[in-house]
């Protein structure tokens, strides 16, 4: 099936069936995953999948439908149902497709044939290598949740009645490992992964396993500390939690409705001058890279916070029209969901500072390596999560800590970030180097 033609056909038919505007978003792809545990294959999974989302506007009323069944009669029926469903929705004069036609698509390098051609045997071997490297880290690594390797090849297509027709294909590959360490009746697991669009950029599987084992071993002997207010360091694995929450608080819809702790903050100092936050959909090879968004708006790099100053909120087509802004190109989606404002490659800009230098400067503080739970409110900015990590005494990591929480307000936290490190790892779509917050409440004993 030619999905580009199919997408256009469905758009045309929807318009013929009474839609004033129509948009089709298709995802197709195939995935492979292997899990290895204790050296043996535990699961092999492989499949191809597809799906179509149809959005129509009838008299400024919006309806949406999605299906994984592409058969002619099913799609025809779905199309009529969708046009009819629109009657149930409210008329909103800001509704509609983005007011832009087709434009030149930037070419992003997101597709690696080496991932498509990677033999299953090699993937199994890589998972085994990762787990073995973890066990090689010493006798205290006694057990394993397993190690996994997954590959994915996918294409997304958007077509709408303004003449937009875009398509983009990409690959990705993930290696992960989760070993368990044991000592004195205590069990602790550690986790590490590498994920890239290009096979050659992956961290070696054995290194993934080793790093995961280090995280597990580091936690053995963890204890609770006294409740106190101290400097808190977020390592690269936990930092993204903050930036993802901050991004959601910048959704123009919530901001203008008074539902964000970052309302009325445009152009103001929301973070310390060491903070520069960027959303870059055009980053070469980025896991979140994409040339067009889920409404067919071309994507662009945006500095979100520059030296602590908030530079922009984010808008989709409707909220941009409503609040007199331009669509940000961040309306992201899967085929089965309506577009919503989301980050692409969102990262805190790294500096030249080594994380060890940050630790050396702290007499008494908490280095957080894992968070648990999601006590984060984008309305109030309140932040309270469970934390695991290392206690810092006199500039050194002294002992492991668990069963405590860290709490503060996100605006206070951002404004009191004193140092940002150099260790950004682009293995997820939200990325943060290690950073230090001047003080937060650590709740323990």
């Amino acid at each position: 099936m030619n999905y580009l033609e199919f997408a256009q056909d469905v758009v045309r038919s929807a318009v013929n069936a009474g839609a004033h505007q129509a948009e089709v978003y298709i995802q197709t792809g195939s995935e492979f995953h292997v899990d290895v545990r204790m050296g043996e294959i535990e699961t092999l999974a492989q499949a191809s999948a597809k799906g179509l989302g149809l959005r129509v506007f009838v008299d400024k009323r919006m309806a949406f439908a999605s299906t994984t069944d592409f058969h002619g009669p099913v799609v025809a029926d779905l199309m009529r149902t969708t046009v009819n469903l629109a009657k149930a929705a409210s008329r909103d004069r800001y509704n509609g497709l983005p007011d832009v036609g087709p434009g030149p698509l930037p070419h992003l390098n997101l597709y690696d044939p080496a991932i498509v051609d990677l033999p299953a045997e090699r993937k199994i071997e890589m998972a085994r290598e990762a787990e073995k490297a973890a066990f090689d880290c010493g006798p205290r690594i006694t057990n394993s949740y397993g190690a996994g390797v997954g590959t994915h090849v996918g294409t997304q297509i958007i077509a709408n009645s303004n003449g937009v027709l875009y398509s983009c294909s990409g690959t990705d590959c993930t290696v992960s490992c989760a070993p368990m360490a044991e000592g004195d009746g205590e069990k602790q697991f550690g986790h590490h992964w590498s994920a890239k669009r290009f096979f050659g950029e992956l961290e070696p599987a054995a290194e993934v396993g080793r790093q995961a084992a280090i995280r597990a071993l580091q936690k053995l002997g963890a204890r609770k500390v006294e409740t106190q207010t101290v400097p808190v360091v977020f390592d690269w694995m936990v930092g993204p939690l903050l930036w993802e929450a901050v991004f959601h608080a910048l959704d123009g819809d919530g901001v203008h409705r008074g539902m964000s702790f970052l309302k009325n903050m445009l152009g103001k100092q929301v973070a310390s001058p060491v903070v520069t936050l960027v959303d870059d959909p055009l980053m070469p090879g980025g896991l979140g890279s994409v040339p067009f968004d889920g409404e067919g708006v071309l994507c662009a790099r945006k500095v979100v916070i520059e030296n602590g100053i908030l530079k922009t909120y984010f808008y989709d087509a409707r909220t941009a029209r409503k609040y007199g802004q331009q669509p940000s190109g961040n309306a992201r989606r899967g085929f089965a969901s309506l577009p919503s404002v989301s980050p692409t490659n969102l990262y805190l800009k790294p500096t030249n500072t080594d994380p060890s230098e940050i630790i050396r400067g702290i007499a008494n503080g908490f280095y957080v390596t894992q968070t648990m739970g999601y006590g984060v409110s984008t309305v109030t900015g309140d932040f309270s999560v469970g934390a695991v990590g290392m206690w810092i005494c006199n500039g050194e990591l002294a002992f492991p800590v668990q069963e405590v929480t860290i709490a503060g307000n996100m605006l206070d936290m951002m404004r009191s970030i004193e140092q940002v490190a150099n260790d950004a790892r682009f293995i997820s779509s939200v990325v943060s180097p290690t950073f230090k917050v001047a003080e937060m409440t650590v709740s323990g004993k």
Partner: protein
Amino acid sequence: MRTIGNLGYETALGADVSSLLPKESIESLLSAALSRGGDLAEVFVQRSRTTSIPLEERKIRAAEARIAQGVGIRVISGEKTGYAYSDDLEMDSLLEAARVAAHIAEGPGTEHAIRVTARLAPDYYTVQIDPADQSAALKTALLKRANKAAYEYDPRIKQADVYYTDEQKDIIVANSDGLWIADRQTLLRMMVRCLAAQRRVSRSGVYASGGRIGMEYFDRISPEDIAREAARIAVVQLDAVPAPAGMMPLVIGNGWGGVLLHEAVGHGLEADVIRKNMSIYTGRVGRKVASELCTLVDDATLPNQRGSINIDDEGTPGQRKVLIERGVLAGYMTDRLNGRLMGLPLTGNGRRQGYHDYPIPRMTCFFMEAGDSDPEEIIRSVDHGVYAGNFGGGEVDISSGNFTFSITEGYLIERGRLSYPIREATLVGNGPDILTKVTMVGSDLALDPGTSTCGKSGQSVPTTVGMPTVKVSEMTVGGTAT
């Protein structure tokens, strides 16, 4: 209107679902899946129809319809699983999926005929007015009622969002042991989110309610009830003081409070982590693991509950299991793979999100049985502590036993009485430790209103949690006030 009784069940639903993939085709797929050998082949057929309607800023933002259908094919060989799925129901694609799944077995094997026989599923969620048959207009009317009630609750309510979803999920499970069984799993939910504002302070309140039930649900729990509860939580929060930090006595309200047990204990009793010796509860059946006030049950048979299931996603009928009885560990929750490898009976806990996923052990309706204490008395027994009334969710680390859950509505307890509301905070504890610190259990067992969804290994399934009012002698509260 559609009522499915036990007797008419197979004909009523079976005919429907059979048209999706006939028995003879399923039998061919099972044969192909075992062509290289293996212990078990299984075919899972799913067709879901979902309607969602969001209301935001007093407008029906959209009307949404979704269809998802596909077939998942699994082959188990020893401890190994081969899995493939297809959203294309043409026989060629499905046979290809069966061959892919078959690769997990080492062979040798030969293709031999498999015959499946239909079994009847129990019926724990009778639906009187099937949401799938109702017009979008009828549903939008419910949303508008909720919206109106939210704004009318208090002039300080400045924003209200209402979300309605219904799902009709038909499944067939068949396997090479000859099983063929089908179920229709209806799910209904309304969620309201309110924003209250006063001077420079803004607070939100969220409340959701529903179950495996038809539109008749709203005669019992009205859209207005759901909206007023969300509005109430938002307004209460306007006066909230910073939550305290440190260890203190905790009283957990009934119903939603069961999220504590779901995280602290439930996940550690799932057979996969038990078999792999990753849970602190491995090898502890018959031992005391909790205060004798604690009796914990997983029950898939509760009428119309969100977490209830007639059959699990491996075709095993839903059951009631006592897992911890008066503090003593009695058993685990199994799926087919782990149950067989461990020599344990099937408990009907093999669940999956959909045809993309293979089943793993999961909770259904997990709750603590009622005790003897008067809930008021429990609060009066605390001199200085925290009362937790509504919750945002939680997380557990199975190997260490550390878990968290977040309070979205809580109060300080001072000299035996609720004083100020406190701001949102996360609480942290250690599962086995907390269970020994349960010192009072109330007589007021309740289940959550039908809002909870559990995530594990990237798969979400609807669940129910429940608990009477409970006192925990001490737990770390993650506020900022020291």
